[in-house]
């Protein structure tokens, strides 16, 4: 493979997208080890891929800022009693879901992932919790909705205590007391800073149903 052919066929992009045959891949590797220009491109592509895979530069996007796992609970009446158990039981679901679906990058760690979810309750109830990132680079929040759900759908927004939003989305939730589970890339947060998770009524964005304040801990 020569430089012109590599450029014209977007060889680096096909290499990154794993679209090359074994033979093409070998030929392209031999090329970028010998071509100064393609070597620079390879070094940049490697830095880019590794940084993104580590969770750097995550988009502040509605659908990819966090992942929601809903947890059905049988009875609304039992919700407050069973909530800690619901959260505990949901951990298994979250761990499996996260390892297999949400965080494929974490599969590379090759072992089970231990999560440390923190239950958030509305601001007026109790002290402000401190949240730490799990080893896989995620923060797991179990949000006690406490009846805040509006018609099965809520809008959530996580922002700095100072005001800048870092993630938001809508989620379907059940009205039976199950917590809303959120998995968030730890890279969205700065350790030592305070954040607010606001639940809103999607039909009226100005109406805040509940606020949850928490601090991201420094290890």
């Amino acid at each position, binding site marked *: 493979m020569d430089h012109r052919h590599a450029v014209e066929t*977007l060889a*680096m*992009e*096909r290499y*990154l*997208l*794993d*679209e090359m045959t074994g033979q093409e891949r*070998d030929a392209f*590797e*031999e090329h*970028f*080890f*010998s*071509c*100064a220009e393609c*070597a*620079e*491109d*390879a*070094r*940049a*592509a*490697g*830095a*880019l*891929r*590794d*940084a*993104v*895979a580590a*969770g*750097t*530069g*995550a*988009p*502040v*996007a509605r659908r*990819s800022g966090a992942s929601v796992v809903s947890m059905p609970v049988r009875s609304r009446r039992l919700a407050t009693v069973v909530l800690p158990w619901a959260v505990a039981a949901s951990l298994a679901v979250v761990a499996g879901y996260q390892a297999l679906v*949400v*965080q*494929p*990058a974490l599969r*590379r*760690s*090759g*072992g089970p992932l231990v999560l440390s979810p923190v239950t958030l309750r509305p601001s007026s109830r109790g002290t402000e919790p401190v949240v730490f990132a799990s080893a896989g680079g995620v923060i797991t929040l179990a949000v006690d909705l406490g009846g805040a759900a509006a018609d099965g759908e809520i809008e959530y927004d996580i922002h700095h205590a100072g005001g800048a939003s870092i993630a938001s989305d809508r989620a379907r939730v059940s009205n039976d007391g199950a917590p809303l589970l959120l998995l968030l*890339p730890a890279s969205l947060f700065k350790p030592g800073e305070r954040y607010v998770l606001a639940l809103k009524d999607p039909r009226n964005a100005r109406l805040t149903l509940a606020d949850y304040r928490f601090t991201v801990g420094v290890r």
Partner: protein
Amino acid sequence: MARLPFHEFDQAYIDRLVAADPETERHFTRYFGDLMTFKLRSRLRSPALVEDAKQETFVRVLTSLKQKRNLASAQTLGAFVNAVCNNVVFELYRSGARTTPLPDEYDTVDPRKPGADAAMVAGEERALVTSALEGLPQKDRELLHWLFFEERDKDDICRELKIDRGYLRVLLHRAKARFRERFAEQGTP
């Protein structure tokens, strides 16, 4: 991936390498170390194995150069490093197939710590990479996130964006080009 000082891979470079000139050795290990990391990341399971393969490649290349004093052509240094690296990986595969599996904790954390200088350079570079990434348009970040963090199926991404695989390559090409531009801007005093 900060731009390294330009070195021509000529006989003089190989002579300096054989003479263990510190600056040339640093350049050699940095330049080819990055390329090998890029190449090996998809072939070897753990960072520790990648690091082992790189170190073994460096040792073999330097030993060979010291014994022979030169290559058929100095310009073929890159191809030579790549070929040695391929052999090392092949041997790792073969030895891996013949031996018992490593304990689970074997490759969790690579205990080898870089020196203070290397750590500082790596830290500065990481900050530049982070800043360049965060400066990308939202659409680029989202695409990169889907591809390399979530490792989503590419056809699935194409369906969602209503594009074909050829255009996915183009989008990746543009995102990568913008990343390189931003990185270069930040690295320029």
